[in-house]
């Protein structure tokens, strides 16, 4: 019957059904959870408990809560024993609810583009909380700080840390640290101090709030929250630089927050802070942050080392990684060090080595599990925030709350602008005003602030409820107002600056060409001013560390074999996903390409050949092709989205690059070889010319592309020929500054292999065609 309905009606029907199911489920969940939270857990039910009683007889009445009398009743064929399974059941129910909600949002077409998911989830939480309250039950205190810090937060942080793009992070580490440390300190003191001043004003009835609690409040609320930032930023597709700035800041400010929080909490009892305490605070900060990193690094190395030996037990490889990371977090928390930094350090340290050791499947497993857990955690956190809002005791004070919200925004803006002013003096790529705006506006607060507030001792801080209310209001404000408006504002700003006046096609092409050229020159000049120490670090890494941590001889072996298989695999997948590569160039949609996040729509294949007159439509088409397809050289131009499982972009770019080169080769084979392949004339036959990986025909041979020997004593640099995978140098790859799957030299012995496997190809390479033969010998540079 379904296929009889017209398509649109059918999908609508499906969606409607699903939504209905979810609503019913929601209602049912609410009631169950509400009922279950009634404080009756300790009583043990007699009806199903025969087996339990047998066990308990051995425990000589240590807890005599169960007085049972064995009376003969009819044997219960079917009985309900909810308490038996209560806790796991509730947990599963929440998780299921969260996931179904997530599903639901994406079914409603326009909703997810207007409202960020986090807002919707909070609303759902509010609904559930409201339903529970309506049902008359007490709302469970779900956002318990322990639960949050020990169970919900680690997956998200681990996911973030593991997939942290190391290079942009390290390039901008100065800026990030400035924002994280100085920025958070500034925020905390500004907000705390001014709040205290406001509280002292006569008419607000707040004069009992002293300075230290205010500062404590300031420190809780000033920290940018990684969960919220991640949730909102992933939808606005800003470029990688900004993403890494805000996100990095949210991660690293954990150390500052921890120290400030403990400091003020500690001394709120004492009532005053001496300069000595300040010094101790600074020392504490250093210990907390560096200690956290150290703990993480140690566990990371342990994990890497363990993974070296797992070649026979592939199945539990992912487990090691997760457990070691979690233990790193717990160990750091044990010493009151920064658990977040420990997790990040652990993930970042173990990743290159573990990835070299574990199997491809384990790798995928790790990726997917991390994404899954972090996604569920995030969803749960937001829902719980909603529920906690409904639940928590509130003490609303207009002055306090509104001043808080305003001050947070103001201090953030001032802080960012001021810091950027200073930072730009040291940065090469300056932060523009638009960047500053995004950084300032993107400083969202989230559940960490709430949990920290929740942890406050009721006795020491009588105004705890007021604090909590203010925190929740601030969170709501940032997530809802800022979260929802940041995307349109970004678009607005972008449009203003873009001046999308029609660039001529020439302009597009030549600008891109120049960009490539300048990038190339930059790369030749060397990327880092402190090139040497990075080089040394890499050499140290390769010489010693990799030997220890990477299994067997894998650090030496030409990973090219494994790499080639990986690539072939990937190419096969791409081909399948693109629906069979009938015509390779147009059949491979860029959805699959890792370099492009949004799928591009290829314009329909051109029907007519080049006519002198171009219709307007065609011109538009051409422009569209150009704009969307010209390769972007610098990653900072690429939009960044952490949910698209992008590993090290460079590594993937490398793989993709080779993939494309291979396809270019195949394309060139298909296309009638054009007569104008130009090369700078051929090589000295016996000089060791560049060794290139010929992946087209024979996977295991590495070809030397020698031009047909003319004996012309010049270098063979296949500049223009698209046939050659451009300068993939096997020997040189060793010194690469990058981690990831490295292409190690195949060994010099293989260089000599058959360069003339494809004589036809060879001729095309070196034969510039009839008209240009004379110019072979002209100098390149006049």
């Amino acid at each position, binding site marked *: 019957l379904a296929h009889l309905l017209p398509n649109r009606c059918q999908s609508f029907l499906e969606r409607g059904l699903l939504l209905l199911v979810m609503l019913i489920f929601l209602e049912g969940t609410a009631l169950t959870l509400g009922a279950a939270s009634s404080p009756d857990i300790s009583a043990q039910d007699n009806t199903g408990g025969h087996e339990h009683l047998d066990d308990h007889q051995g425990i000589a009445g240590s807890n005599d809560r169960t007085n049972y009398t064995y009376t003969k009743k009819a044997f219960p064929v079917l009985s309900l024993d909810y308490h038996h399974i209560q806790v796991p059941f509730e947990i599963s129910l929440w998780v299921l609810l969260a996931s179904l909600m997530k599903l639901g949002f994406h079914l409603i077409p326009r909703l997810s583009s207007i409202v960020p998911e986090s807002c919707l989830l909070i609303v759902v939480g509010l609904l559930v909380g409201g339903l529970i309250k309506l049902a008359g039950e007490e709302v469970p205190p779900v956002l318990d700080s322990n639960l949050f810090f020990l169970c919900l937060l680690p997956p998200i942080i681990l996911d973030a840390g593991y997939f942290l793009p190391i290079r942009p992070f390290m390039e901008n580490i100065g800026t990030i640290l400035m924002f994280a440390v100085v920025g958070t300190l500034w925020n905390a003191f500004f907000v705390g101090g001014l709040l205290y001043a406001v509280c002292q004003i006569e008419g607000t009835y707040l004069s009992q709030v002293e300075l230290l609690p205010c500062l404590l409040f300031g420190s809780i609320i000033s920290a940018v929250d990684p969960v919220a930032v991640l949730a909102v930023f992933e939808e606005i597709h800003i470029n990688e630089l900004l993403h890494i700035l805000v996100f990095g800041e949210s991660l690293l400010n954990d150390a500052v927050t921890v120290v400030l929080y403990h400091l003020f909490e500690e001394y709120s009892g004492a009532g005053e802070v001496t300069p000595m305490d300040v010094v101790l605070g600074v020392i504490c900060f250093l210990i907390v942050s560096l200690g956290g990193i150290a703990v993480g690094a140690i566990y990371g190395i342990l994990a890497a080392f363990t993974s070296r030996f797992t070649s026979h037990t592939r199945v539990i490889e992912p487990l090691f990684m997760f457990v070691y990371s979690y233990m790193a977090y717990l160990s750091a928390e044990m010493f009151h060090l920064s658990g977040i930094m420990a997790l990040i350090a652990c993930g970042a340290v173990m990743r290159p080595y573990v990835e070299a050791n574990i199997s491809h499947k384990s790798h995928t497993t790790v990726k997917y599990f991390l994404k899954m857990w972090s996604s569920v955690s995030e969803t749960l956190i937001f829902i719980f925030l909603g529920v906690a809002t409904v639940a928590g005791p509130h003490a609303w004070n207009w002055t306090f709350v509104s001043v808080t919200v305003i001050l947070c925004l103001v201090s953030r803006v001032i802080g960012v602008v001021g810091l950027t002013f200073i930072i730009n003096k040291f940065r090469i790529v300056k932060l523009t005003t638009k960047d500053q705006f995004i950084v300032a506006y993107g400083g969202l607060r989230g559940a960490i602030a709430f949990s920290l507030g929740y942890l406050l001792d009721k006795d020491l801080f009588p105004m705890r409820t007021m604090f909590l209310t203010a925190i929740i209001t601030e969170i709501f404000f940032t997530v809802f107002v800022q979260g929802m408006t940041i995307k349109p504002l970004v678009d607005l700003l972008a449009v203003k600056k873009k001046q999308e006046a029609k660039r001529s*096609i*020439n*302009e597009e*092409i*030549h*600008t891109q*060409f*120049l960009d490539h*050229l*300048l990038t*190339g*020159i930059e790369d030749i000049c060397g990327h880092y*001013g402190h*090139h040497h120490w990075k080089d040394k670090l890499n050499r140290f890494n390769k010489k010693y560390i990799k030997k220890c941590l990477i299994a067997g001889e894998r650090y030496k072996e030409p990973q090219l074999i494994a790499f080639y298989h990986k690539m072939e695999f990937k190419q096969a997948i791409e081909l399948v996903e693109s629906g069979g590569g009938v015509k390779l*160039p*147009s059949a491979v949609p860029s959805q699959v*390409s890792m370099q492009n996040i949004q799928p591009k729509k*290829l314009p329909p294949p*051109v029907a007519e*050949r*080049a006519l002198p007159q*171009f219709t307007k439509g065609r011109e538009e088409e*051409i422009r569209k*092709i*150009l704009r969307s*397809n*010209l390769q972007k050289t610098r990653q900072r131009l690429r939009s960044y989205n952490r949910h698209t499982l992008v590993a090290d972009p460079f590594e993937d770019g*490398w793989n993709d*690059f080779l993939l*494309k080169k291979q*396809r270019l080769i195949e*394309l060139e084979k298909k296309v009638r070889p054009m*007569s*104008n392949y*130009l090369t*700078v*004339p051929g090589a000295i036959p016996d000089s*060791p*010319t*560049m*060794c290139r990986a010929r992946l087209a025909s024979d996977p295991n041979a590495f070809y030397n592309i020698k031009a047909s020997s003319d004996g012309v004593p*010049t*270098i063979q*640099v296949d*500049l*223009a020929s*698209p046939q050659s995978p*451009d*300068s993939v*140098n096997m020997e*040189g790859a060793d*010194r*690469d*500054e990058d981690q990831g799957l490295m292409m190690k030299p195949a060994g010099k012995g293989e260089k000599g292999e058959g360069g003339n496997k494809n004589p036809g190809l060879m001729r095309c390479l070196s034969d*510039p065609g009839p008209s240009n033969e004379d110019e072979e010998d*002209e*100098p*390149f*540079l*006049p």
Partner: protein
Amino acid sequence: MGSTNSTLSKIPNVEELMEETGFTPAHIVRLYDRFEALDKEKTGHLRPQDFGAINRLAMNPIGDRIIGAFFSPGQETVDFHSFVRILAHFRPADKKHPKDPSMPEPVNSRTSKLKFAFQLYDQDKDGKISRAELLQVLRSMLEMQVTEEQLESIADRTIQEADLDNDDAISFEEFRKVPLGRARRLTYQHGPLQHSAPRILSQPHRK
């Protein structure tokens, strides 16, 4: 800076080089360090595979052309002087020097950068970018998402737009006329060397 002087003394004819290219001693030292880092076998010359070792460069669609630009035909190696001379094209421009029409065009002016780029297009050195050359460039830049016909029509359109004297090719003059105003990286303070060199290099005439 003692280390600068000692490094400078290692380089023959360094005064002349600085004069010709306009690099300061700090620049030269920086470039020399880079040259040595690239020259793994310490031969004092760079070969194409040394350039090829730069991974990012290999990923660049026109990476090979750029490398080729360093080597004059007839040579398979590049020594430090030639290395520096070519990079001189990309030195951040001297904002402070007034434009003196009587002096020859400075080596790192916008025009000479454009000329350099033009030469990378124009493989056969006939002073024009022919349709085929353009097609090759487009093919390497546009990766694989564009079909052959689309490439050809793009090439046709490009030539049609730029070609003013109707010879079906783009000459340097026509190339220059393309409004590349948005190519910020060509203009003054954004030379590539600024990115890589220590901050001191952004003020090229500070001794």
